[in-house]
């Protein structure tokens, strides 16, 4: 971690007070669980949960040429989305390897914000600053800024999360400031937001103004709430004081991982890294074919898939773990596990893996095995996601 000290989010003291099991993750002391990963997971699927995700990074991109900048740095058609909308995209290196996966928020044609993985904030910021410098040398007007330390980020997820949020807010639908942000468009009411849209609201009793997006990383209906860092504790405690509205529980990173994995959402460092290209990861739909972006040229030369991401479940009870080997029916190694965990919703072990031989036909992979510390556990390919609650999720 760049020989720097482990950081704490504004909520570290609250997590410790609640007796959370604290672990180091992406350079931060974060709660792994408060009581039980399984209980927390199931509560998000059934009711609602609140996550401290203030460790995630936020990078703003501003200037007259911000639109051409975001279109060049990110793989998706970012500038084409509307103001108040969000798009999922990748950042690729020149070879087409994945530097990070991000969401990009559009405030206007000359102002965007990327929300990036905590583990990649430094790397991403160095990368976009490098591109910014190239742009500026060509006389373009664009400035990137890492505002991660200024922002507290809470995520409220689950089918009942609206029962918590709606009664506690009043909408701010005017053009102008919204907490740390400047809306140059008139935002929608929070209730009217569709998936991947954002607006502005005030939490009435505590007078905290926040940017609220309809987004998340659980496969459930939910919100992400951006507040000034110094307001994070107030808002966290206020939402938990109102937990009876939605049977809200605080949720740690353990359940964040099992929830995202059941929804088959990729995690950087597991399904994604710089040795993996978007085709390997099955993310080609996030590549624009109408504009140029960094890495696009290299991707043209990737004709054959070198590896392929598959999802599987186990009939046994042992849990597959990252980097364990995948063996075919003749016990020949054919790949490595990306993610492996226990599925609390299904009550069996699940995983994802990169199968290294492009010639392996996945439908032929009827019988294959995971080498779990010398035990060859039988696995079966399944088509993701492992859990579907998308009626409410989108």
């Amino acid at each position, binding site marked *: 971690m760049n020989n720097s000290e482990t950081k704490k989010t504004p909520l570290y003291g609250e997590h410790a007070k609640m007796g959370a*099991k604290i672990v180091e993750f992406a350079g931060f002391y974060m709660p792994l669980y408060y009581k039980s990963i*399984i209980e927390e997971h199931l509560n998000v699927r059934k009711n609602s949960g609140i996550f401290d995700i203030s460790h995630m990074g936020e990078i703003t991109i501003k200037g007259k040429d911000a639109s051409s900048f975001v279109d060049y740095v990110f793989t998706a058609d970012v500038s084409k989305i509307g103001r108040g909308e969000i798009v999922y995209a990748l950042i690729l290196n020149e070879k087409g390897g994945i530097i990070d996966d991000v969401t990009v928020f559009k405030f206007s044609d000359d102002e965007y914000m990327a929300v990036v993985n905590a583990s990649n904030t430094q790397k991403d910021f160095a990368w976009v600053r490098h591109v910014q410098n190239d742009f500026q040398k060509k006389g373009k007007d664009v400035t990137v800024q890492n505002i991660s330390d200024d922002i507290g980020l809470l995520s409220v997820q689950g089918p009942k999360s609206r029962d918590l949020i709606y009664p506690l807010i009043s909408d701010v639908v005017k053009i102008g400031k919204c907490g740390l942000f400047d809306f140059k468009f008139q935002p929608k009411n929070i209730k009217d937001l569709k998936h991947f849209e954002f607006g502005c609201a005030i939490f009435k009793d505590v007078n905290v103004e926040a940017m609220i997006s309809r987004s998340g990383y659980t496969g459930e209906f939910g919100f992400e709430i951006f507040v000034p860092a110094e307001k994070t504790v107030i808002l966290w405690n206020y939402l938990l004081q109102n937990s009876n509205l939605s049977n809200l529980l605080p949720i740690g990173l353990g359940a964040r991982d099992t929830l995202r994995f059941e929804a088959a959402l990729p995690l950087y460092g597991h399904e994604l890294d710089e040795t993996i290209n978007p085709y390997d990861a099955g993310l080609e739909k996030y590549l624009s074919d109408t504009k140029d972006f960094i890495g696009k040229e290299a991707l043209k030369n990737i004709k054959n898939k070198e590896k392929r991401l598959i999802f599987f479940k186990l009939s046994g009870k*042992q849990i597959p*773990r990252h980097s364990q080997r995948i063996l075919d029916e003749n016990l020949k190694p054919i790949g490595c596990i990306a993610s492996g965990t226990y599925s609390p919703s299904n009550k069996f*072990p699940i995983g994802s893996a990169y199968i290294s031989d492009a010639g392996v036909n996945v439908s032929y992979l009827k019988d294959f095995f995971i080498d779990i*510390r010398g035990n060859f556990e039988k696995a079966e390919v399944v088509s993701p996601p492992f859990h579907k609650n998308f009626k409410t999720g989108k």
Partner: protein
Amino acid sequence: MIKSGSFYFSKSHEWVSKGSNDKYRIGISDFAQSELGDVVYVSLPEVGKNYKKDAKIGEIESVKSVSEIYAPVDLKIISVNSKLNDTPELINQDPTGNGFIAEVEISNDSDIEGLMDEVKYKTFAESSHHE
């Protein structure tokens, strides 16, 4: 002198206890289960097998991690707690009771005297918590 009903702990967080019927049981400590989190699978030791102190006798998997179970003293496995096959969460709920790992034979009571009693173990666990 080993007291029936008392628990004796190893540095790797297993316990041994002598029942009123002169049988011994082993398991993992409450501290160990709370560090592991939700237990979802237990690989139990082999019945009838002799294990030396500190030998690996099994594995416990939680959602997040896997950890090994070691023999707290030289012992022979008489029977295992097969309830753990279907309800591994017993280890979280009742680690020193219904969540025991196995019933064992121990030839030397004096081996147990080398372990920590409950008071000493409490201090030991608290210090490992803050490592």
